[in-house]
């Protein structure tokens, strides 16, 4: 593993590294919640994989004999990254509407001239939104999701940066005790911040309901538990924390669909 010269934004310390010719982001475990954030990032990627949704590969690693996480860089030769935030910012010089609302997200994804398939992007957005609900995801700001550009056209990037999930600040080593301190999404619903479960329950967005229904059918707590353990997460943490949270949130969602 060698450090390269790639820069990745965000609050956490991270480095670009190259392993066997592939680029990765290396995040050393730091601070009070470093270990649980690292495990949460890995667990979140496994949930997406079990649901067969595109996500960054996450691996546990060591850096200077300390725990770290390796996250695969999804940009390949000739491609570039475009965060959703930059598409909204383009509106600043036109309509002036740079609000991070579901309405603005829909209209941007469906009408932006460089987006190749707006419906595909909308589906990717709502899949991410519903999984973020299941995993107790963080706010998901407009820079934390986006697109891969290639030859002038944009398509959805795999989901990335899910480390602030699974109510990591609540983790003390004891089993999960519902409901957990959920972070509301940064997007606005009817002008206000609103819990993800309430957005799903509203039925206002058919694409959201479709994503929730797909995930309801596909979700398997048992498979996820096996995958977490195989990936190196201790059985107790996997069962008492990660899958306990998923099952609790899943059951709440099941009731409203």
């Amino acid at each position: 593993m060698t450090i390269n010269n790639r820069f990745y934004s965000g609050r956490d310390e991270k480095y670009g590294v190259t392993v066997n010719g592939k680029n990765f982001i290396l995040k050393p475990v730091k601070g009070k919640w470093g270990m649980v954030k690292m495990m949460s990032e890995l667990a979140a990627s496994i949930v997406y994989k079990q649901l067969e949704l595109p996500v960054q590969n996450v691996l546990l690693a060591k850096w200077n004999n300390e725990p770290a996480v390796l996250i695969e860089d999804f940009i390949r030769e000739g491609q570039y990254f475009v965060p959703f935030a930059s598409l909204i910012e383009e509106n600043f010089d036109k309509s002036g509407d740079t609000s991070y609302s579901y309405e603005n997200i829909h209209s941007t994804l469906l009408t932006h001239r460089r987006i190749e398939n707006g419906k595909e992007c909308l589906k990717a957005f709502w899949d991410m939104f519903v999984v973020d609900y299941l995993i107790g995801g963080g706010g998901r700001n407009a820079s934390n999701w986006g697109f891969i550009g290639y030859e002038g056209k944009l398509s959805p990037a795999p989901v990335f940066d899910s480390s602030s999930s699974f109510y990591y600040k609540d983790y003390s080593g004891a089993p999960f005790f519902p409901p957990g301190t959920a972070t509301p999404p940064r997007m606005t619903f009817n002008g206000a911040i609103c819990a993800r479960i309430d957005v799903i329950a509203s039925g206002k967005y058919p694409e959201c309901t479709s994503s929730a229904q797909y995930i309801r059918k596909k979700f398997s707590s048992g498979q996820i538990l096996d995958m977490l353990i195989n990936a190196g997460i201790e059985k107790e943490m996997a069962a008492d924390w990660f899958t306990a949270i998923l099952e609790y949130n899943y059951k709440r969602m099941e009731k409203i669909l």
Partner: protein
Amino acid sequence: MRFNVESADICVLFNGEPYPVCGIEYYTDENDLFYYCFTPYYERIKLLPSSVFHGIQGIDLSLEKECYVRKNFVPSFISERSPIPTRTNLADLMNDAGIAEYNTIAWLKHTHLRYFGDEYFLREKNKNEYF
């Protein structure tokens, strides 16, 4: 009101050489007010193939404005490729670039790091080579 200004050129690599595509100025004052101004070099951009130039994050170049101003918010082009003030290893990143005071444009001009998401980079303006 007095503003400090830090300026640079946004460049791409074209035929192996740095090729300026847009000017950028960052104005700050003593009350922490700031703004960024992007001035695209449309005539130069027209000469580039789409494999080299694919727009500037956050800027709708089809409007063909002379200047795109971002007042008191950090444009995504900058926030994507420079450290935020709360970055945990900010001091190391500043030291490595030889920057004493936090300034995104100065950092981008001096760092050896390159944004993962595209091939663009910043460097000092060189007015002799524009046209």
